[in-house]
């Protein structure tokens, strides 16, 4: 028990007829940098909200740092820091004032507040901007200030909900560094949600892939990728029907590996892929199917996600983007 920072047993959250988190069992060890990876609407934020006592679970139990989120929410709150998905700063106050108000709410003494504000500002490199109104901060600076604020009261567990959402790649890299730093140097257990594969891959010790409120897979990024058992061969054909037909053909031919198709692409996970490509192509040409391109790569978390859920994590996102550009076009007309 002593080594667990977070433990959930059959944790469930229902919103009317939607089950956002479905009998979830999860154990996070102390000191871990744990990632929840999943598409939008997978239930990551709901899970964090339950663990941070913002919403009550409909069923099941959860303990954070050995405190029950239902029975002792205040102790849970005292021991956690939360950086929510949207911004939660008071933009009419300066950075320092935001931190000071936070410190007061968590009962830090005057001396402690002063010292801690200096420390966390240094950590996120915002000393120069401390006395400027938050209104004038950039998105990345606000995110950094929020991380600093979440750390003010020495939380045992820090929840980060999509910490780099909407930030440019350079700022993202910066924030990754802070996260790594505070996990290592301040010894804070961190649980972060993300739908960026690279983020989960680069940062986390362990990752839970979540979809439809359930854990689809849980392991270290390396093991998750290795679990696919080899390399990923990606074939592109003319259209979806051909892809599905070819898929079936490979399965019939006893293709020793995992075969998936998505739109007009086929993904074959296979050991020693480089040597299997000729054979794969022979089967296709035997069935008179025209292959447009072939690609071989080491499995990424994207492939892991695809093999566990049958869809790519970015699917919704791209369709949303399509909607936007459509609206944009109609608006311009």
């Amino acid at each position, binding site marked *: 028990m002593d080594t667990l920072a977070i433990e959930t047993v059959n944790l469930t959250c229902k919103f009317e007829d939607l089950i956002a988190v479905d009998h979830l069992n999860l154990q996070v060890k102390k000191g871990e940098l744990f990632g929840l990876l999943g598409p939008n609407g997978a239930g990551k934020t709901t899970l964090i909200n339950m663990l941070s006592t*913002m919403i009550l679970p409909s069923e099941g139990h959860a303990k954070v740092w050995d405190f029950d989120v239902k029975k002792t929410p*205040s102790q849970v709150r*005292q021991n956690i820091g939360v950086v929510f998905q949207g*911004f*939660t700063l008071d933009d009419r106050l300066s950075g320092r004032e935001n931190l000071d*108000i*936070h410190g007061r709410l968590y*009962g830090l003494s005057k001396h402690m507040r002063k010292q801690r504000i200096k420390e966390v500002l240094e950590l996120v490199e915002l000393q120069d901007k401390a006395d400027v109104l938050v209104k004038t901060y950039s998105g990345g600076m606000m995110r950094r200030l929020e991380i600093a604020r979440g750390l003010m009261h020495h939380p045992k567990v820090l929840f980060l909900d999509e910490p780099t959402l909407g930030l440019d790649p350079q700022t993202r890299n910066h924030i990754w560094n802070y996260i790594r730093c505070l996990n290592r140097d301040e010894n804070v257990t961190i649980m972060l949600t993300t739908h960026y594969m690279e983020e989960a891959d680069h940062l986390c010790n362990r990752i839970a892939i979540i979809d439809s409120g359930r854990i689809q897979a849980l392991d270290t990024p390396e093991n998750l990728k290795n679990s696919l058992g080899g390399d990923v061969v990606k074939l592109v054909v003319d259209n979806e029907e051909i892809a599905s037909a070819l898929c079936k053909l490979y399965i019939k031919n006893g293709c020793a590996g995992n075969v998936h198709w998505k739109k007009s692409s086929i993904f074959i996970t296979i050991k020693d892929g480089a040597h299997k490509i000729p054979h794969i192509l022979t089967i296709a040409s035997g069935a008179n199917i025209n292959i447009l391109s072939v690609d071989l790569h080491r499995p990424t978390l994207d492939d892991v996600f695809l093999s566990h859920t049958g869809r790519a994590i970015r699917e919704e996102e791209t369709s949303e983007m399509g909607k936007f550009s459509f609206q944009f076009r109609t608006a311009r007309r």
Partner: protein
Amino acid sequence: MRWGSSASSSGQRGGDITSLISDLPGNCSIATNTVYTLWLREMLRFRRSKSRIIGSLATPLFFLVILGTAFNSSFQMRGGGDTNIGFLTPGIIGMSILFSSLMGGVSILWDREFGFLKEILIAPVPRFFVALGKALGGVTTAMIQGTMIMIVALFLGVEYQSYLGMLTSVGIMLLIGLGFIGLGIALASQIESHEGFQMIMTFITMPVLLLSGAFYKIGDLPMWLKTLTYLDPLTYGIAALRYTLMGESEIPIIICLIVLVLFAATTIGLGGYLFSRAKA
């Protein structure tokens, strides 16, 4: 942990009264600290919003100068020897307290809009005291504005009864402000979006102001209207201000005070309760 077991009082659905009382000393320090922190935040924000201070003074002063002068040349105020502007001043102070305290309570909607509400709700402190701190902060700004109008009116030639009366009237402002800020917090906790704000302004502020006797004497009204004015809590606030500032009132001061205290206690209690159940 400094808060110890006492902090369990701030459950997700509000403070549990029995556990609040069972650990009184510990809770007192948390309570004072929470109230002070939220009050401090309002003060820090207020100090920066110079345009808001000026803007909030301008409206009542327009009322005072324009209405006061217009009333003076149109009607002769019956009874009491003072001028119309003197009659209007307590009413205008009451109006300004009503506006700024309701606004202060409803500002929770903006906190929700800009996300800061989450930061307050996640803190390990009882939400009732968060609401109370916010209320006191809003009331302080309302009292500052009310006092400024009182002083400006002095320069406009209004003669107050006594310095003691002026001082007491600040206390009356506190009571009026608490009552309406509690109402604002209660409403803001129930309304999920800031679109409901316009509704509040239209269907609460205006009737409350117009029925309050800020601009007229209640005694001469037809029965139906008189009944309505007696149902309006601001009536008692303005009557009390008239008593402390001008030395005359249509309603006995003791009744005014009883109504004001009851009104403030009810709305603050209700506001604190509803806020502790509010969603982020």
